[in-house]
């Protein structure tokens, strides 16, 4: 195939975010990159079905998500504890990018139901609108909204975030603020 340069550039521009999404789905960088590769092959083989000028990131995310889901279902049949092994793989993974302080957050994120996690990431990190996320996940906008809300509520609960202070880097300060003054 010979790619239109503008299409190729749009694909290239989407790859970093596509990888970040894939890693958040798989919890494993190598598997995620394989998934991205598969997505690119699938996308370029079907590039004629991409409407020029439409939303390339959303198109690629949709393909990636569908590939992940079919693989996930297959694995689920093969391996009993798909969710558990995912959470485990995240826990055992050394922190990326040196953000040791995010380990607790990563672990909590890994414990969310997959639908809630992907909705939260699409809207909260990938920068898609609720409408775009609904299209990517093939569901109603209201469903995305409720998944995002539930995801946030569960994260807040798991991490016991009740106020800004709870996220302060200084544990001693946090103890003073939450332990002695506010209760």
């Amino acid at each position, binding site marked *: *195939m*010979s*790619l239109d340069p503008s299409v*190729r550039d749009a*694909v*290239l521009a989407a*790859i*970093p*975010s596509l*990888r*970040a999404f894939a*890693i*958040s789905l798989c919890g494993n960088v190598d598997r995620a*990159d394989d998934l*991205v*590769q598969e997505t*690119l*092959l699938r996308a*370029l083989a079907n590039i004629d079905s991409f409407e020029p000028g439409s939303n390339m990131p959303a198109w690629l995310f949709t393909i990636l998500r569908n590939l992940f889901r079919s693989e996930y279902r297959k694995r689920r049949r093969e391996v009993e504890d798909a969710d558990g092994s995912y959470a485990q793989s995240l826990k055992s993974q050394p922190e*990326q*990018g040196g*953000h040791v302080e*995010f380990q607790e*957050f*990563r672990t909590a*994120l890994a414990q969310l*139901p997959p639908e*809630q996690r992907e909705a*939260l*990431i699409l809207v*909260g*990190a*990938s920068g898609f609108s609720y409408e775009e996320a609904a299209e990517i996940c093939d569901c109603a906008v209201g469903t995305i909204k409720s998944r995002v*809300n*539930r995801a*946030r*509520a*569960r*994260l*807040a*609960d*798991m991490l*016991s*975030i*009740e*106020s*800004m202070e*709870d*996220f302060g880097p200084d544990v001693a300060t946090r103890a003073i603020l939450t332990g002695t003054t506010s209760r």
Partner: protein
Amino acid sequence: METTSRPSAASRSQGRLGRDVQSKIGNQLRAIYDDVVKEGVPDRFLDLLKRLDRKDEGGSQP
């Protein structure tokens, strides 16, 4: 999804999460995500696109 039975969970599920809580969750989420985004496009994908793009041109490029 059922929430845990901590007392704070009840009050939280009744109302919306505060803005500061939402923004803190959002900040952590984006920080993790952006760590990956900042890595840019790994060579394997650059090579893949080059390879695919060249297929129909007879692979004349070295």
